């Protein structure tokens, strides 16, 4: 029996790959195993190689693995592209229909399973993915009965017959492979028992969307784009129960300005996009900053520039997100590093946006937004809604006489003014993106201008956000500090434990608050290390530059980039660090 393994299913997009992975993973998650997934897909609907890789473990895991134990292949291309990942003695379960072969030099067992044929016998060729699930289950040693509940949940609407047929397909897959392997001497892939605890299984985008509902968002305005669309799709399903809705706008400029308008109206509203959409939003983000409107923007990073690699992993929007708006505004940028954090950080983003009356960007990357992982149950009691200096009680407002206006931009010690929503008799004020006075009237006077700039820019001086960095820094005199952001958290942790096993002293700091930059916290950690390795999915070292600019210590910084569209593997980080220690005169 084994405690962890990696499983992958691949084929042409549209062949039911997602659904095969989903079915198997849901069953395993419900049984208490820990899962971590990554979807490799192309920017087209039908055709094009696509695969889902899932790591299955009896202990918490937050990274994909370097290698692969079981590969399920619907075509030869899947074998040719992925077999190199297989461990020696790994297994390929391939559809007999295409006469699969194993590439030279690969020491894996090939089991040709008549996936399509069995599926046709059961009733439908499309069900070959369920036969493939069955074939895998035969190796993993879990019971077929555990699938009934999941299939019932999924196909309840389609009727008992569909459920039975799918069960049949799985059973026949199991039977076929069981007979085959009884004659082969292959390694034992039977999973050790799990702890049986109930946990959730979700992608980052699910957590953000659910977090938005929990955080009081009732409107969303967005334009579809990979890898953010799941957020709007979830909310359009769920918001009507709460009186709200999603508007699919004509473009991202409309999405962000509608978001600003709705927040001005007093409803917590968000928009979500990826790099191309964020680029279109920049002028309006400045408007939100200038007019002190709260608004929450989600940026799910993908491969750029331009249309770039729309379905691939990258972390290359960092500097654009922080600095692309013209002029100077207060802005908060938060980078969750796990699905769980996506949930709590989104709720917090709505609070911060209202407390500080400024735009808040939640940034993720494709691997975090779309990677499905096991999540500990989310905690209702941690949900908190704080609306800052919003005046909710009209009685509080002094009467306005003689067409006076409410000082919506009144100066105050912390730079934050009282905020009134349209509709209040004694709250009348003006809002403009032009420089203005305390009531919002356009006013270009030099003294006022400076005061207003200082007021807006000082608002974040007292910002308190929980854990601006995650610091796993056990050594006071580390050989290296690895710094990362977003989805690389688990991968760095895994590389780190291998380096530690080699006798190296390694610390890890993961940046969660990109703006304002947690300079002092990071500096403290950097001082404890001889070298600082910044691991990021981009070519030019954007996080590295940010650290250089804010913290300094340029001589210690080393940028380790990956920008081929794929997430880092633990082995890659391990190797880079080793190399640096050998050749880098640490």
């Amino acid at each position, binding site marked *: 029996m084994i405690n962890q393994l990696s499983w992958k299913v691949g084929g042409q997009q549209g062949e039911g790959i997602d659904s095969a992975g989903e079915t198997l993973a849901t069953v395993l998650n419900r049984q208490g195993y820990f899962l971590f997934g990554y979807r490799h897909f192309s920017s087209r609907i039908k055709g094009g190689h696509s695969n889902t890789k899932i790591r299955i473990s009896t202990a918490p895991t937050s990274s994909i693995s370097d290698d692969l134990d079981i590969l399920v292949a619907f075509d030869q291309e899947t074998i040719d592209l992925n077999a190199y990942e297989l461990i020696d003695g790994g297994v390929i379960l391939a559809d007999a229909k295409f006469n699969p072969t194993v590439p030279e030099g690969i020491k894996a067992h090939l089991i040709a399973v008549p996936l399509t044929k069995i599926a046709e016998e059961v009733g439908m060729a499309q069900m070959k993915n369920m036969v493939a699930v069955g074939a895998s289950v035969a190796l993993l040693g879990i019971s077929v009965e555990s699938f009934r509940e999941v299939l019932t949940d999924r196909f309840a609407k389609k009727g008992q017959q569909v459920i039975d047929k799918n069960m049949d397909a799985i059973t026949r897959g199991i039977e076929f492979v069981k007979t085959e392997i009884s004659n082969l001497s292959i390694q034992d892939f039977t999973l050790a028992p799990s702890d049986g605890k109930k946990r959730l299984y979700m992608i980052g985008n699910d957590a953000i969307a659910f977090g938005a509902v929990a955080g009081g968002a009732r409107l969303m305005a967005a334009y579809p784009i990979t890898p953010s669309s799941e957020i709007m799709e979830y909310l359009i399903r769920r918001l009507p129960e709460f009186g709200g809705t999603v508007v699919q706008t004509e473009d991202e400029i409309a999405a962000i300005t509608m978001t600003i308008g709705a927040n001005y109206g007093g409803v917590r509203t968000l928009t979500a996009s990826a790099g191309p959409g964020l680029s279109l939003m920049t002028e309006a983000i400045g408007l939100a900053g200038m007019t002190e409107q709260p608004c929450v923007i989600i940026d799910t990073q993908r491969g750029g520039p331009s249309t770039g690699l729309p379905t691939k992993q990258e972390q290359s929007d960092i500097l654009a997100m922080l600095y692309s708006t013209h002029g100077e505004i207060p802005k908060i940028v938060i980078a969750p590093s796990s699905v769980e954090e996506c949930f709590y950080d989104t709720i917090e983003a709505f609070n911060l946006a209202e407390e500080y009356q400024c735009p808040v960007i939640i940034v993720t990357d494709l691997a975090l937004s779309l990677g499905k992982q096991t999540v500990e149950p989310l905690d209702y009691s941690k949900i908190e809604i704080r609306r800052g200096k919003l005046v909710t009680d009209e009685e509080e407002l002094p009467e306005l006489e003689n067409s006076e206006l409410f000082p919506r931009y009144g100066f105050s010690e912390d730079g934050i003014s009282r905020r009134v929503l349209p509709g209040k008799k004694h709250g*009348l004020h003006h809002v*403009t993106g032009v420089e203005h006075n305390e009531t919002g009237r356009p006013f270009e006077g030099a003294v006022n201008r400076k005061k207003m700039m200082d007021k807006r820019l000082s608002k974040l001086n007292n910002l308190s956000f929980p854990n601006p960095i995650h610091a796993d820094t056990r050594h006071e005199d580390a050989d290296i500090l690895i710094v990362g952001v977003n989805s690389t958290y688990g991968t760095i942790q895994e590389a780190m434990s291998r380096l530690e096993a080699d006798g190296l002293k390694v610390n890890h700091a993961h940046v969660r608050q990109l703006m304002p930059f947690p300079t002092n916290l990071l500096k403290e950690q950097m001082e404890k290390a001889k070298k600082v390795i910044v691991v990021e999915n981009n070519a030019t070292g954007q996080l590295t530059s940010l650290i250089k600019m804010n913290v300094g210590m340029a001589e210690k910084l080393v940028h380790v980039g990956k920008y081929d569209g794929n997430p880092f593997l633990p082995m890659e980080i391990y190797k880079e660090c080793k190399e640096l220690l050998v050749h880098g005169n640490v």
Partner: protein
Amino acid sequence: MATFKEFRNKVKPNWCPGCGDFTVLASMQRAFANLGKEPEEVAIVSGIGCSGRIAGYVNSYGFHGVHGRSLPIAQGLKLANRDLTVVASGGDGDGFAIGMGHTVHAIRRNVDITYIVMDNQIYGLTKGQTSPRSEMGFKTKSTPNGSIEAAISPMEMALTVGAGFVAQTVSSDLKGMTAIIEAGIKHKGFSLINVYSPCVTYNKINTYDWFKQNLTSLDEIEGYDPSNRGQAMQTLMEHSGLVTGIIYQNTERPSYEELIKGYKEEPLVKQDINLTEEQFDRLISEFA
């Protein structure tokens, strides 16, 4: 009930003397008063341009945003608080050049707001460049040899993309304009009102006199029926778009708000945003 004077504030408009936008301002204030609105019930969202300053000249809530984006801001505001009377406004460049995409889609979407375009066929604020409303051959600073692009016909365009309320008026007609703005606000759904609002400084062709000579009031066309879309289109074509009055109104088309699933009569902004534990558990079960 507020009088039109209560919709005035103390800010002196920075428009040139004689600018058509003054009458638009006065008509808006009268229309709000005639409809029995209070200043706090009205929000004006405007774009950037000479015309865009109008939001700051009405004693009501006002949002002066960025160039070309008054419509999405206004729609967001209306969806947040459906009790507000939301009026978007701006210039012809704002609505038919940089913001044209939003204009077309706001018409399609049909959120219950009113859009007033102050159409002077030129860019006023940036000191006299051509606009998509400038006629072919129109000479400006940016078209010294005359415009070589066709002018857009906003009223015909609005009809083709499914507008439920299309009207046009002119700044010299305070009474007529006031009545049209009232009708536009009362209309359930999106209403587009194009106002010929002469720029006395940069447009020496399309002057008050020019409009007097060239505009035809729909009142003068016998048997004109604003519920007849075909007739509306034909009339616009026959008059090169130079008509005033309510060109088309469809009282049957439901507004966006009426079609949103689960959208309540009570404004969204007034609803409780806290999830109950029962709701939380129900939502989370999807991910188990």
